[in-house]
Each structure stands twice: as structure tokens, then as C-alpha cells.
């Protein structure tokens, strides 16, 4: 028998209004408050500009200046062309140096900015270039092209240039970039199978674009009892390596150090070859040399930049001389090998420096110019200066002591800019997609700012590439990539908030159900009473 309290009407009315007021408060104030307090802070990202990046179209523009030498144009053509006269004289003592001197003299004539090319057209019958050479590419951004343009009859400037087009295109593809270079720079963004194997080998060998690189030069002396080695590495670096690194300053920062390792052995036993009276390392065993040595190498690297290692190994007196044989069992002239994205190793034999009866340890000074010649060429490969196959009829002047020719540097800058732009835009678009997908990741203000600055820098880089300003384009692309990397790898973007739906229910139900059930039931009761009241009123009326 349950006793119900009997309530008078005004009490019932008060009760009803109290229940309605509480329900109204919960719905009007409680739900918005709960929503606001469980919201994650997401700063605004420029979504429209980011989606524009997905369909990015790159246009690369090279500024070319064409200079016609006397005798290449017919007098009528000469009149039609706007001209300003500049003459120079050169006297060539010997044939072989003539080209280099001419190139040097021509280089001082015109000012070339980063990324531009100057092509000098010289007459067909000119004796400056040897007979079978059509194009000579010098150490700066100039090329000498031998062609007969005067045979184009009755033509104005546009027709003359059109006639030169195929040859100029070939020159530009060698000096600036071609389709293969650009696809190689974009390898990881393209579908597989689109780049050739050669360019794939080049892209595997060179390091990816990075804000900095750490280079370590190590001397390995396994036999200090017999060999006391002296290497003047500081002077050698100053003379041979730093000029190259200084030229590459727009591309990345470099930090160089050196070390000497004693009692460091190669992991492979060399075989004695009686025919050559030397110990040999075959090409197959080279792959296993690096790992045991790498475990012993110290590294000064405090940053996350990639590390290049250059090792100079002086074999011990029991295993001297040590030569490297290639696949065809022939001796390798440089006695050195390199591993993609790691560095290079050179074997330096010193057995010729002393006889059998000298007193040990022997003082040996290492010929750094020979060593640095090898390391410099390996360094060039690692940094991305590919061994360009010159088309037939072309002669490319070797860079020599400067380390790198200016047009080679321009080539690298073109591919690096493209790579940076592609990587930065891919990072930004994938970051935006990630943040969209995961609704409860917190986006701080600094991330939004990094993303905005990355997008701005990207658009500036693309604009500069279109305008042909390579140096500015590279600078903007570096800014873009560093901002996008910082935004993508920000430690606060870790998504640990994966809640399966049943876990969400398990959290909220014990909190909200005890509170909501009385409110709902009282509302239902009020609703039923009102219905009843209305039914009674209608019955009374009828």
C-alpha cells in the first residue's frame, strides 16, 4: 500500500513550473556549456589556399641571352636586329687554352644572374672550336654554339631565333634542366614507373633536400705501430672543400669536422693476388666493409641533419698494398668507392714510402691533393651534381679546383627548388587533410601561423620560378619547406584521442543519465497531465 502525498493545486503548479524551469535551464544553458567546454581549440587554417596547392602547376622560366658574333648574321638581318656594339680582343697563345681564355673573357663581358644562360653564336667556319665540337659549355653560365644562321634567307629576328630553337633547347636541357631532372626531383610524389632508372639511380644517390648537412672526414689508421700518419686536413679543407661549400651556401648549411681513428679495421679480409703482388678487395665484398666501420665512427652531430662520411683508409703494413677491383677484375684508378646517401671510402697505399729496414714507426705525410680530388668528386655526387651525359658534339668544361661550375650549381638549384616546392606543398596538403579527418586534435596558434607562412612562401616561390628569378625562388622554397616541416612535425599534433563509440557511451552515460532521467520523467508527467486536462476540458464542453 503506497501512500501518495496529496498536493494541492498551487503546490502542483509550483512543482510543474519548477520541473519545466530546470529542464529549460539544462537545455538552454547546460548543453551549450558542455559543448563549449569539451571543444578542442582549433586555430583557423587557410583551407582555400591549401586546396589550391593540390592542383599546383609549376612553370619554370629560364632567361636566355643570345649574342651573335660577327659573321653569323647577314647584313640585312643585322640591320633588323637592335644592336649595341661591344668589341673585345683576345690573343690565344695555344689552341688548347684558347677556349678557356675565350670563355673567361666572354664571362666578364656580360653579367649573368643566377639561373640565366648566355649563348654566344659563332660562325660555322670559326676556328675557335675544334672541328667535331658543336657546343662548348664553359665554367660559368656561357655556352658557345657553332651554327650557320646566315643561311636563313630574308628573315627577321623571330625567324632567326626559331631556326636556332632546337639547338638552343639542347643547350638549355644540358645547362638548366630537362624533363628527366624535374621528374627525378619529384620521384616520391609521382606514380611509380614514370622516372627512368638512370634518374632513379641519381635520386637514390644524392641526399634529399635538407636545411643542413654534417660532413665528417675520418682517417683510419689500423697500424699506428708502423705508420705515423700526418694529414693536414684543415689546410686541405680550406683549399679544396670550403670553396664548394661556400658556393652552396644558398642551398644548405654545412658543418664539417674531422677525426682520426686508430686500430680501426675493415670488416672484410682482402685476398692476396700474386699476379699483382697486392692484396685485393673485390667489388662484391665492398658492400660489407662499411657496417663494422660505421659502428666505430664517432659523430659530432647534434642536429637531425643527414651525415656524410668520407673515410681515408691506410692499410696496415701486413696488407699493403691494397687495391680495389671492379666487376671486370680491373684495377680502379681512384682506389675508392662510395655508397649512396652515406659517403665514400678511399684506400691510400703507403708501402712505397719506405723500405723494409727502416725504423718503425715511419712518419708519412699524406698527399692531400690526391685524396681531396677523390673526396671532392664523391662529395659532388652526394650533394646532387649528377654525372651529366653530354649529348654528341657537346664538350662540358670540367669544374676543376673550383669544385663546381656555375651552370652546374644552377642545375642543382632548379631541381632543389622544384623538390622543395613539391615536398612543402605535399606536407601542407596532407597536414590539412589529417587535421580535417581527426576532429579532436588541438591546433595551436603557432601551427596555424607556420602553415600560413608556408603557404605564402610557397606561392612566392612559384611566382619567382615563373619569373625566372632562381635565387629568390630557392630562398622562398627553403622558407616554405622549413615552415611546413615545423608545422607538420610539431610535437603537439599527436593524436592519441581515438575513442571507439562504445567507450564514449561508457564515459557519458554514468554522468548524464542519473541527472537526465528525473528531468525527462517529470517532463513526461507534465505532458501527460496537460493532455489529460485538455481531454477533460473537451469532454466537459461536449
Amino acid at each position: 500500500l503506497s501512500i501518495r502525498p496529496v498536493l494541492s493545486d498551487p503546490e502542483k503548479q509550483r512543482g510543474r513550473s519548477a520541473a519545466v524551469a530546470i529542464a529549460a535551464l539544462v537545455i538552454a544553458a547546460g548543453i551549450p556549456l558542455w559543448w563549449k567546454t569539451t571543444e578542442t581549440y582549433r586555430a583557423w587554417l587557410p583551407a582555400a589556399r591549401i586546396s589550391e596547392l593540390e592542383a599546383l602547376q609549376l612553370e619554370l622560366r629560364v632567361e636566355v641571352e643570345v649574342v651573335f658574333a660577327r659573321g653569323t648574321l647577314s647584313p640585312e638581318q643585322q640591320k633588323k636586329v637592335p644592336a649595341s656594339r661591344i668589341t673585345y680582343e683576345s690573343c690565344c697563345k695555344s689552341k688548347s687554352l684558347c677556349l678557356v681564355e675565350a670563355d673567361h673573357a666572354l664571362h666578364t663581358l656580360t653579367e649573368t644572374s643566377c639561373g640565366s644562360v648566355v649563348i654566344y653564336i659563332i660562325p660555322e667556319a670559326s676556328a675557335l672550336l675544334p672541328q667535331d665540337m658543336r657546343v662548348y659549355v664553359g665554367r660559368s653560365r656561357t655556352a658557345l654554339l657553332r651554327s650557320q644562321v646566315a643561311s636563313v634567307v630574308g628573315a627577321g629576328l623571330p625567324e632567326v631565333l626559331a631556326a636556332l630553337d632546337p639547338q638552343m633547347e639542347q643547350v638549355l636541357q644540358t645547362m638548366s634542366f630537362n624533363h628527366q631532372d624535374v621528374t627525378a626531383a619529384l620521384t616520391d610524389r609521382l606514380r611509380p614507373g614514370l622516372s627512368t632508372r638512370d634518374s632513379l639511380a641519381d635520386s637514390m644517390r644524392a641526399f634529399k633536400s635538407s636545411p643542413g648537412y654534417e660532413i665528417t672526414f675520418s682517417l683510419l689508421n689500423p697500424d699506428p705501430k708502423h705508420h705515423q700518419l700526418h694529414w693536414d686536413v684543415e689546410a686541405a679543407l680550406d683549399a679544396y672543400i670550403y670553396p664548394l661549400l661556400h658556393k652552396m651556401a644558398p642551398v644548405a648549411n654545412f658543418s664539417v669536422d674531422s677525426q682520426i681513428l686508430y686500430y680501426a679495421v675493415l670488416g672484410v679480409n682482402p685476398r692476396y693476388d700474386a699476379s699483382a703482388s697486392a692484396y685485393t678487395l673485390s667489388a662484391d665484398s665492398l658492400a660489407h666493409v662499411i657496417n663494422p666501420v660505421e659502428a666505430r665512427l664517432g659523430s659530432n652531430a647534434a642536429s637531425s641533419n643527414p651525415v656524410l662520411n668520407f673515410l681515408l683508409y691506410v692499410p696496415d703494413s701486413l696488407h699493403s698494398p691494397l687495391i680495389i677491383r671492379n666487376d671486370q677484375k680491373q684495377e680502379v684508378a681512384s682506389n675508392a668507392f662510395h655508397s649512396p646517401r652515406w659517403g665514400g671510402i678511399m684506400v691510400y697505399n703507403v708501402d712505397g714510402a719506405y723500405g723494409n729496414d727502416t725504423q718503425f714507426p715511419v712518419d708519412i705525410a699524406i698527399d692531400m691533393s690526391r685524396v681531396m680530388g677523390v673526396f671532392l668528386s664523391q662529395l659532388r655526387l652526394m650533394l646532387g651534381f649528377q654525372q651529366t651525359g653530354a649529348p654528341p658534339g657537346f664538350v662540358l668544361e670540367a669544374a676543376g679546383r673550383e669544385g663546381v661550375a656555375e651552370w652546374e650549381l644552377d642545375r642543382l638549384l632548379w631541381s632543389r627548388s622544384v623538390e622543395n616546392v613539391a615536398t612543402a606543398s605535399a606536407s601542407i596538403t596532407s597536414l590539412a587533410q589529417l587535421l580535417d579527418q581527426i576532429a579532436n586534435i588541438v591546433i595551436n596558434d603557432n601551427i596555424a601561423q607556420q602553415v600560413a607562412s608556408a603557404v605564402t612562401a610557397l606561392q612566392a616561390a612559384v611566382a619567382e620560378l615563373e619569373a625566372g628569378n632562381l635565387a629568390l625562388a630557392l630562398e622562398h622554397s627553403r622558407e616554405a619547406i622549413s615552415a611546413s616541416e615545423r608545422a607538420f612535425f610539431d610535437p603537439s599534433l599527436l593524436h592519441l584521442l581515438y575513442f571507439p563509440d562504445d567507450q564514449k557511451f561508457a564515459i557519458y552515460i554514468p554522468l548524464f543519465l542519473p541527472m537526465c532521467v528525473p528531468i525527462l520523467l517529470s517532463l513526461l508527467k507534465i505532458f501527460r497531465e496537460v493532455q489529460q486536462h485538455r481531454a477533460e476540458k473537451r469532454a466537459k464542453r461536449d
Partner: protein
Amino acid sequence: TARPCMLISSSVALDFVLIGRTSAFLLLHQARAERFFRSDHTNNWAVLVCTSRFWFNYRHVANTLSVYRSVKRLGIPDSHIVLMLADDMACNHRNPKPATVFSHKNMELNVYGDDVEVDYRGYEVTVENFLRVLTGRLPPSTPRSKRLLSDDHSNILIYLTGHGGNGFLKFQDSEEISNVELADAFEQMWQKRRYNELLFIIDTCQGASMYERFYSPNLMALASSQVGEDSLSHQPDLAIGVHLMDRYTFYLLEFLEDIHPASQANMNDLFKVCPKSQCVSTPGHRTDLFQRDPGSVLITDFFGSVRKVEITMETINLTVPGIPLERFGGEPHTETALAYVDQLPVAQIIHQKPKQKDWHPPDGFILGLWTLILLVFFRTYGIKHLKHIF
């Protein structure tokens, strides 16, 4: 001879337009180095994680250390291995042979050795740190040895062991990582091209559930048991008192002991490791996301570190006689005599003044104060309220 030139100032711009997303044609070329392209990787990384602590989970630490040992033996250097051990078994108080972790009973094989470099130890092994290592979102102060610095041509081996269930893996007995989070982490790695190919091995109960949700390309996964099955441990050692290894990793270690850096064994042999007769559970694998055929993938592609090498054919001739070495922008710096900083400032220690301590009231004072208050209370209101306090 004089060669006068005429300068024509005209800038001709040749436009090379590249459409970013679509490319038109496939270039077919004769490859220059065939050996280069057997696989696409230039370096190897390994992330080895043991997720459980406490002495009775000795076998999980032994599992991880045995894989670490094999991977090091086959050539991956410590700088490329991220080893995460959730507890220290070698120096545990209950270890009857300190500084050792054995994997075979009768203490046949000590997998701890004297060359172990643990990067994340003890309580540093958390789900958050594991995901941070994988995705690269570490704070800038993290040292190099604790980072996974892989690039787009790295092959990564990821080995997880511990206690797991259907769709999750337990970390440190207090938190868990779900298969969805793991799949998302791998997708983020793929977006940033942090791996070329990835081999994922997991030795837990119901391990196959952890690789069910993967959706990124170039992933191959192996697990020690299917959903609904338990992975069992191998053999206890009566002197140490716990089970030393799990079955799957025990037979995996046996298989890897036969592999040397020049071995040609491939992944199909790895899939055959530990059949049901030996393992009691059914090991599983997943290769649908992997682009190459598993039969052409060498074990050393993931477990070892066989470098690609090329002979250096071109050198630069720097030996030009008569040209002295110019110093590039370097001024000769005077050698200053270097000395160590004073390590132990003895003078300061001996003549130290006693440190000023903050004044506290004497210890018994507060206790006495409260006793006084209680006594006064009970005097005033009577003793019968005492029962409410006690």
C-alpha cells in the same frame, strides 16, 4: 686575332611548363646499373619495442633483445636502431645471474651481451613516445639516438612484443595502443615518405588483429597468432624461475641465426617459421599492401644492412704543380692555452657558511595544540561526544 662581337640585347624566354599531377609518358631506358635496382632502399632502420614490465614478463624483454642481437649481427648499427625496453631484467633484483638475459634454458645464450644500447627504458616506453618516434613529432631537445631519422629510401623493421588482445596491445600494464592508431601512424609515415618498405612483426596474443587495419602501401606484416588464439611461451628455466622466450620469437631467432649478411634467404622462408606444430598458435602474415613479390624480398633487406656501393670512376685532378694552397678566408688564430674548469671548488666547500633553514615551530607543538582543543571541547560539552570521534 681580334674577334669583335655584337651584342644584341634581347631576352628570349623559353618556357618549360610542367604539369604537377599528370605526366604523359613513360621513358624506357637501358639501365646503367642493374644491381642497384634489386631493391629501392639505401639504409635500414629497426624499431624494437618490448611493452611489458615486471619480472614474470622476462620473456618479452628476452624476445626483443634476441631480435636486437640478430639485427646488429647482420649489420644494422646502433645509430639506426631504436630499442625500447619497458623494464630492466638484467639488473632486476630477482635475477639470479645479474647483467644477463638468457633466451635458451640452461643459460645457453646470453642475449644481453656487453654492447646493448637501450634508447627508451623503463617508464619512457609509453604509447605516446612510441607514436612520437614513428611519426617524428618529437620535441626539439630529443637527442639523435632517440629519433627515427629515416628517409624515403629506408627499409624499417618494427618488432612489437608484449601482452595484447583483439585490436590492442598493452603498454606498461596501464595503457594500450589500438590497431587503428597504429594504422594511422603508418599512414602519417607514408605521407611524409618516412619509409620505403616496412616489415611489421608482432608477437602477442591475437597478434593478427593488430595488422588488420593497415591501409598504407609497402607494408608487410607478420604475427605470431590469429585472432582468438593465444601466443604461448616456450620453456621455463628452473634456475631463473620464469619462462625465457615466446615460442614464435624462439623459432624466429633460430631461423635468423642461420642468416649471414650475404645470405639469399627470402621472405617466403620467414613465413614458414614456427608452423602450428611447433608454435601451437597459427602464425599469420599479410602481404597485400606490399608491392614486390615476397619471394624476391631478401631477409637482409630488413634484418641486415647491406649497402649499395659504387666504384668512384671520376676524380678531380687537383694536383696542379706550382700553385700553392690558398687559405680560404681563414685568419691564423693564436693558440690559447686550454685548461680544465675547476671540477671541485674545494675552497668554496670548506669555507661554506651553514645554510639558513626556515624556522618551523617545534614538532610536538601542533599535536599538543590539537589535544588541548579537544580536551577543552569535551570538558565543556561532556564526555559523551567522544564516541563520535573514535
